[in-house]
């Protein structure tokens, strides 16, 4: 059973051709009563056939949107040291790809430090961690250095990969979304987790799924 409460306006901010069916307010009424945390968390695992039609239909309208069970489009981006890094390099091991709004913002710092503090657990699971935002290489370098982040940060400067993967924005598209994808050894997506305002939860959710991969 998927626990699913959707961020209020979690639609990709970029593709103009999308038509927007907006079932979210109704879903929101259902789920927002339970707890504020559910308001901000979407965990899409689609384990049963009763997947929520509204969310998937809206997201399906976006071309090249990454879904669970599919392999995401490949990319090559520069890391914090300016080296080119390709997603294909990590085939053969699980990868956690987390998209975050920006370096040096409170939520992203919490998230980065949380990934850092649990890095041993990710390594134990044989997984790599990659953080992606629209910041440039120098920003990533400073951010990684300041907080001693042991994993790769990639500079998606024109948000090209973010758009290709269809990472939804938040708050009417004013904020880049915070979404994490877990890819298995074959490069297939097994988890998509979205939560803008509770960044530490991304670590818990990804570690949970890695146990099963």
């Amino acid at each position, binding site marked *: 059973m998927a626990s699913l409460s959707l961020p209020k306006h979690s639609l990709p901010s970029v593709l103009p051709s999308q038509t927007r069916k907006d079932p979210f307010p109704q879903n929101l009424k259902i789920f927002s009563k339970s707890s*504020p945390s559910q308001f901000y968390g979407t965990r899409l695992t689609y384990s049963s056939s009763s997947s929520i039609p509204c969310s998937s239909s809206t997201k399906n309208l976006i071309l090249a949107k990454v879904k669970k069970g599919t392999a995401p489009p490949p990319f090559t981006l520069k890391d914090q040291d300016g080296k080119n890094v390709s997603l294909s390099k990590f085939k053969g091991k699980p990868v956690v790809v987390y998209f975050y*709004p*920006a370096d040096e913002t409170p939520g992203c*710092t919490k998230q980065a430090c949380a990934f850092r*503090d649990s890095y041993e657990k990710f390594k134990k699971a044989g997984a790599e961690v990659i953080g992606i935002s629209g910041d440039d290489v120098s920003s990533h370098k400073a951010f990684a*250095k300041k907080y*001693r982040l042991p994993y790769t940060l990639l500079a998606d400067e024109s948000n090209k990969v973010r758009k290709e993967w269809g990472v939804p924005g938040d*708050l009417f598209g004013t904020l880049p979304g915070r979404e994490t994808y877990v890819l298995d050894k074959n490069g297939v997506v097994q988890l998509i987790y979205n939560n803008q*305002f509770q960044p530490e939860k991304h670590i818990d959710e990804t570690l949970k799924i890695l146990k099963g991969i």
Partner: protein
Amino acid sequence: MSILAQNKLPLGSQRHFHKYHVPSIHTRVHCSATTTTKPKTEPNRLVVEPQVVLPTPSLSTNSARPVLNDPSLLSTWSHRAWVASGCTTVLISLAKSLAGAANSHIWLEPVLAGLVGYILADLGSGVYHWGIDNYGDASTPSFGTQIEAFQGHHKWPWTITRRQFANNLHALARAVTFTVLPIDLLCNDPIIHGFVAVCSGCIMFSQQFHAWAHGTKSRLPPLVVALQDLSILVSRSQHAAHHRPPYNNNYCIVSGVWNEFLDKQMVFEALEMILFFKLGVRPRSWSEPNSDWTEEAETPSQLTVS
């Protein structure tokens, strides 16, 4: 985690020292949010070091540490005049509301409007407070003095309890005068006046509620303590939370009724993120706690009597 005592100046801080300031050593442990970089440390080991933060003055020379009997804490006749004018405009609005309600034989609507005014005043105080605390500086047009005063308040929060009444309220009273007077002159609706009177009255007196929130229980009038305990006025504990790192919560200072909701729903954090992405401005509360926020402890030896 190992904690190493180390003297360290904050990076990028201004390096001039105010002659009245005694450097104070603040020990803060940051878990997971910040670490200082030390090449010798193993990469996976988190080392947390206390930082010595030497006070950096705000941009204006007016922000000297207040002293006992500091003239800047006393009320002037100008202050008293503005408070009188503010109170007058609010009382006129209230009178118009009561008279209009009596004439029209309606009571519920003006009372409800007043209640709405009281509730919205709290929200307004929070939004304004958040804006002033996080953006702009002493050189900002119109708001510069207020911003500087708020920063000074964070450094020396106890000062507000030493300000005389009119000194404390005059800025808000001036704003209320300019806002409410036109409404008094142009409007006769008792419901609107019910809202305006209560809302503007609460806003004008929010600085007094704020001062009381910094008071100690033993020194406050019992009625005030009772109102605080009932959450009709912002409580001392709730407001104290605002004066602790990371200084990004409990912004409302009338009743504080909005604080829990705004903080739990991360409304201000969302607004800060939006402003960052749209305008490129970072709020002050995102920066590492530095001397702009850090409260200086009040001890007898540090206070000078002029």
